[in-house]
């Protein structure tokens, strides 16, 4: 099977980019999307040309490194997917596939398909942790937590920080990411002491990074490889309002 690729090429954050066409690329349906890009790069290098830069690490859909917008969809067509878990069987022979990086002011393009997502790291650094005595791991179930609450915290904790929510959002908002990171701590007893300080600091950092605000389109939820729901955004909103109106911050 053959596909026509249009891949975004950009030398650096300040340079203007454009699409480069790769017509009639020979692929097999079993190939993963990143294996196809590897083949494209092998061919480019053989010709002495610059390879297409893209992020990838585990290639198992669990690390959150990879990601690009494929035909208008972050991580490509289909639900609950990462780019590395997208396979060429999702496309037809002769398809034109357009590939471009996440587009957000807070995610500047480093090169080609690679963007700088350290804005996410700074949101975590602002408060996405608990301060507790470390030492040996406590016994399992020494702090009893109800099954439903544990499940909900786990759902939030599945966020791999890939940035698809930002890429999918009409406003390039990081609310789904921030809400997941606030909620997986805020739902558990260990996260309670800093709960309202945390939400204020993380939201302040999110705003300072230049992400947009949420206008409730739910495109983030549809694009999330871990299917994290916008109910966590409601939780984040509630916690921030409580923190301010109840003066619960320290």
């Amino acid at each position: 099977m053959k596909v026509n690729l249009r891949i975004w090429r950009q030398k650096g954050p300040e340079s203007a980019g454009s699409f480069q066409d790769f017509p009639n690329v020979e692929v097999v349906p079993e190939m993963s999307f990143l294996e196809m890009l590897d083949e494209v790069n092998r061919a480019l290098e053989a010709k002495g040309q610059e390879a297409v830069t893209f992020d990838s690490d585990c290639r198992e859909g669990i690390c959150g490194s990879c990601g690009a917008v494929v035909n208008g969809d972050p991580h490509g067509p289909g639900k609950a997917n990462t780019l590395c878990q997208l396979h060429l069987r999702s496309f037809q022979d002769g398809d034109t596939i357009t590939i471009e990086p996440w587009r957000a002011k807070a995610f500047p393009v480093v090169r080609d398909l690679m963007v700088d997502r350290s804005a996410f790291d700074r949101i975590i650094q602002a408060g996405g942790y608990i301060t507790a005595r470390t030492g040996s791991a406590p016994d399992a179930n020494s702090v009893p937590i109800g099954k439903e609450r544990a499940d909900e915290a786990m759902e939030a904790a599945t966020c791999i920080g890939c940035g698809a929510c930002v890429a999918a959002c009409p406003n390039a908002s990081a609310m789904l990411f921030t809400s997941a990171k606030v909620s997986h701590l805020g739902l558990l007893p260990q996260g309670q002491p800093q709960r309202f300080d945390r939400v204020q600091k993380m939201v302040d950092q999110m705003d300072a990074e230049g992400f947009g605000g949420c206008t409730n389109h739910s495109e983030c939820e549809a694009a999330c490889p871990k299917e994290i729901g916008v109910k966590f955004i409601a939780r984040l909103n509630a916690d921030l309002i409580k923190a301010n109106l109840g003066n619960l911050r320290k």
Partner: protein
Amino acid sequence: MTAFFSLAKSTIGKKAIMAGSGLIMVGWIVLHMAGNLLVFAGQDHFNAYAEMIQSGFHIEPALLWAMRITLLACVGLHIWAAVGLSGRNRAARPVAYAGGRKNHATSYAAEFMLGAGVVLLLYLVFHLLHLTVGVFSDDVVQHAAFSKKDAYRNLVVGVGNPVVGAFYVLANLALGMHLHHGIKSAFQTLGLNDDRWNPLKDALTRWVPVFTTGAALLVALSCMFGVGVLIEAPDLSWTPSH
């Protein structure tokens, strides 16, 4: 007040202010539309209802102004938050997707939110000048002998004009769309998205726009086509201006 200002600094706080002011206006719009349906009860009933509001609900004339100032403050806060947030949202993606971005979850109402908001602001200004202040002293846009004593005639003649009536119809369709996404968003912004609140949210999201737009269209179309809104007692003091 300190809490209000600390909240107003963050994007989420601005949205909470937008949600709160929006919900107050939604409540008022529902009452206003229910009142408008009294037009079908006839001239006397409708004018008695208008006089009740003019007199501050027969309690205290200042109540009318308290209500007006509250609503005006809500409109102001709502627009202030919208301008700030939408500017930020546009700035958050300075380079658009060259190959486009597909939508999978959003609605037309959500996408048309800002556009509908602008339509509603224009409509609000026109509507107040048209039927509250009465500045258009001709028989085309408005009843020439506009009178606070005859709100019924002002409405029936004013909205009866096909062009004016069509504007009311379009604006109220925009209102329905704005309320559909607005009510849903307000619940989400105020953190009320769980099994306890969702039945109420879903019911209001569906039925409030149906009621407000339905009632407004019913009144506007009745005035335009002269169905069910006959002026029973002709106002003999009225003399045509031309």
